[in-house]
């Protein structure tokens, strides 16, 4: 019997998810023994044509990380969907849009203009923009085009499972791989991981008083008491609105949760939920006092929607069609 074929692919991502696969350390060898890796651009050399030539559904599982931001990424996502039995959105960007989706706060034109014309690091006056195609010496080269909006994988193609995290932890990756190899599969659409919020796993949880409110917002570098619940100290922590499963890696490492695992299955909009919770618990009751307190959160979108903007109800700044 031939070994199951597995593919790893990356779209709009930082590469951290690829690192996690490597982070499986010795375990990776066990995986490699049991499967044939047919595509892994970060580590091995495969050509587009090789994949294109494969019969549909011939890949057992594709782990795709990164958001979908360009025409090339969309094309690859669609092709890998066709070729794979299971398509797994791997990591926060594929799951909920991730950091790249913060670009949805701005129209594409504004992004291109700043990055290629106005940024202070550019040579003034050149204003060179990337061209979709360019012919020189009789040869034409092409570039993919940027979409108007950044999307999560399931906003482009059908997704079977989600492995959350920025990046997913080795433990949760192993759980996903084990599930696939053992054939003991959860219902389609499942996010691998528990379905309660992070506080459950956080060792600071017991230090949170029953009655508390936000008098002012602090940032993690300000004098904080070790081991105490961040929220109780006035630091925005996404823990209560974020799916558990990371074993509270950030909070036990001295930083508040930033929400990379996304909300629980019961929540449509993680950012709106934590926003609703935090604002309900403000000590201030008068409008100007409330404004003053909230000014302590200088970047609300980046705070509450750091990973989830693409999948949120907010979606994007302008109501543009998603394709160019």
């Amino acid at each position: 019997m031939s070994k199951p074929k597995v593919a790893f692919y990356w779209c709009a991502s930082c590469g951290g998810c690829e690192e996690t696969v490597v982070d499986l350390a010795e375990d990776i060898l066990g995986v490699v023994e049991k499967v044939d890796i047919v595509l892994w651009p970060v580590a091995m050399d495969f050509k587009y044509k090789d994949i294109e030539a494969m019969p549909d559904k011939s890949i057992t599982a594709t782990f795709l990380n990164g958001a979908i931001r360009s025409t090339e990424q969309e094309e690859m996502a669609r092709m890998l969907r066709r070729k794979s039995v299971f398509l797994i959105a791997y990591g926060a960007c594929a799951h909920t849009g991730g950091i790249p989706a913060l670009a949805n706060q701005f129209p594409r034109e504004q992004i291109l203009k700043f990055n290629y014309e106005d940024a202070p690091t550019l040579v003034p006056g050149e204003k060179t923009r990337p061209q979709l195609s360019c012919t020189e010496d009789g040869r034409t080269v092409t570039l993919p085009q940027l979409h108007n909006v950044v999307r999560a994988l399931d906003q482009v193609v059908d997704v079977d499972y989600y492995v959350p995290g920025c990046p997913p932890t080795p433990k949760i990756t192993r759980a996903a791989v084990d599930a696939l190899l053992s054939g003991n599969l959860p219902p389609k659409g499942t996010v691998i991981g528990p379905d309660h919020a992070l506080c459950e796993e956080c060792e600071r949880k017991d230090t949170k008083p029953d009655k508390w409110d936000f008098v002012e917002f602090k940032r993690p570098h300000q004098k904080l008491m070790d081991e105490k619940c961040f929220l109780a100290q006035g630091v925005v922590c996404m823990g209560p609105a974020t799916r558990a499963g990371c074993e509270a890696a950030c909070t036990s490492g001295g930083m508040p949760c930033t929400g990379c695992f996304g909300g629980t299955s019961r929540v449509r909009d993680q950012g709106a939920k934590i926003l609703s919770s935090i604002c309900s618990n403000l000590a201030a009751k008068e409008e100007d006092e409330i404004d003053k307190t909230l000014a302590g959160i200088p970047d609300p979108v980046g705070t509450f929607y750091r990973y989830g903007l693409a999948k949120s109800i907010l979606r994007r700044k302008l109501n543009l069609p998603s394709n160019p």
Partner: protein
Amino acid sequence: MDKPSKQTVRIGFYICHCGSNIAAMVDCPAVARFVGTLPHVVLSRDYKYMCSDPGQELIQKDISEHQLNRVVVASCSPLLHEHTFRGAVEAGGLNPFFFHMVNIREHDSWVHTDPAEATAKAKELAHAAIMRVAMHKALEVKKVPVHPDVLVVGGGIAGIHAALTLANAGKKVFLVEREPSIGGHMAQFDKTFPTLDCAACILTPKMSAVGTHPNITLLSYSEVTKLDGYVGNYTATVKRKPRYISEDKCTGCQECIANCVYKEPKFPDEFNEGLGKRKPVYIPFPQATPQVVVIDPQTCLNFRNGELTGKCKKSCVAACGDKEAIDFSQTETFQELKVGTVIVTTGFQAFDAKRMPQYGYGKFPNVYTALEIERLVNTSGPTAGHVVLRDGKTEPRSIGIIHCVGSRDKKTNRWCSRVCCMFSLKLAHLLKEHTGAEVYNFYIDMRAPGKGYEEFYDKLLEEGVHFIRGRVGEVTDWARTPDEEGKLVIRVEDTLAGYVRRIPFDMVVLATGLEPHADAQDVRRMLNMSCGSEGFFLERHPKLAPVSTFTEGIFLAGCCQGPRDIPDTVAQAGAAAAEALALIDKGFIEQEPNTAFILEDECCGCKSCIPLCPYTAITFDAANKKAVINEALCKGCGTCVAACPSGTIVQNLFDDEEIFSEIEGVLAHE
């Protein structure tokens, strides 16, 4: 989106014309036709009056003939008829919560002027309801027993009457009064208009009935500081202020007063509006209930700045003898009361006449407030009914009574205080009777709309009391003619005669209006009631629920709800008692099942919800490290549901599925 269970959903839709209330602005047949095209809608009708018996029977008939399992009615406000239609749906054999109501009257036909747009809006709202009702689940109404005891807050005539009515019906009543005696403002009045009954003669029998009634526990010199719980099961915390007298030992002999180290009364007497004097140990007035003295720590020599020093020789204690009723060691205590219903009868405060400096109250000694005059003409008052000026000897020969002081005035209080015209007439009559002086009334409009009131006004006109129509500009002691010397001059535009007049008087009386107590907002918050813009407690419906509040089981009577006279107050107190009795005798309340609950396995124990609940229904279970909602306390406000960051609190009738479906429905229409 379609779930298998939805395949079996069969919705009946009804749009009500409400006569022309809705049909004049909304094309009801067109809405019915549109809704008929929506998924799961089996039938869609328009009908003249859905709330009528035939309308309700139509729903019941359709449920059985068309196997409907969901019903939507688009008509008026759910506040009015949700109960009616839920009843009809239940009578048709369905769970009443498989029903949803769309308000296309208050939210649509009554507030729009363009029929095409109003019709489009009705379609959108109906679409939302159709989407939502498909998600509805069967729910159960819970019955919670009603505690039969009643708390009455405030011991004026309203509280007294309500307490006696309930006590006579066999209910146990706790009457809490913050002053040392019950009686309220009415106890201060001399006579009552228009019959000129002696106020004390009709009030004091009721007061002593309260004092001796086996079913009434009178907590005087006490204040309610906290109210927890919900209709049928309230827990009130009452602060008992120290009166330094043991209530069960004091016999009311008043030997202590006679033997106080102060031989003469020295301190302003609150009951007589400061016109008389009292000792540090005193009884507010002869008929005070309870007949128990009180020691004022601010003036008693045994205290300094309210703190016990023990430096007085305590002749009062010696006088009390082996009754041993005087107890200087008393401190504030708190008592918890379990009751099912609460009647709020906290009354009013008189407008502070100093807020209108042009009338000179506090500046000219012979400018009086109406309440001062009530005490001055009273036989048991500070002058034994002998009307003299503040010098204590001169009888006034001319008296001017100014109406609407702190009423009907944009600068102070805009409302009419309703009783000032009549008490001014009464005082005019009494002052004339006591002194034979010339009495003038300065009024804006004469308001005498009660039984026998207009006749009383006629009587006053015949008695020779003068009436000048005009709002008084000022009261001044600046004499311009010799006959104005040493007098108070009222300057007024006589709007009937058409010129400005100056009239000199020996005495000026200000008919001060009625306003909410200074701490009415605190009481409102404590009892979870609402206030109108003027600060009086708000009734649930001005016409149809005049003594109910927006909090179930809390009722209102008397001037805390708005200015009114004694007959209206007593009638209201009776009505409030009847409302409480209705609840108590029913024995249980039905609780709306729109409560919130926590998915116990999923709760991460983040405590975000705990401080938010306005009804203190959420507690933290420290053993399981999870939040717990007491369903009986939950009012279904949804605050915790919205704030739960992990979506673990769910509210019946408002779960995400229902709300998002509703939103999708309302947005589906182009």
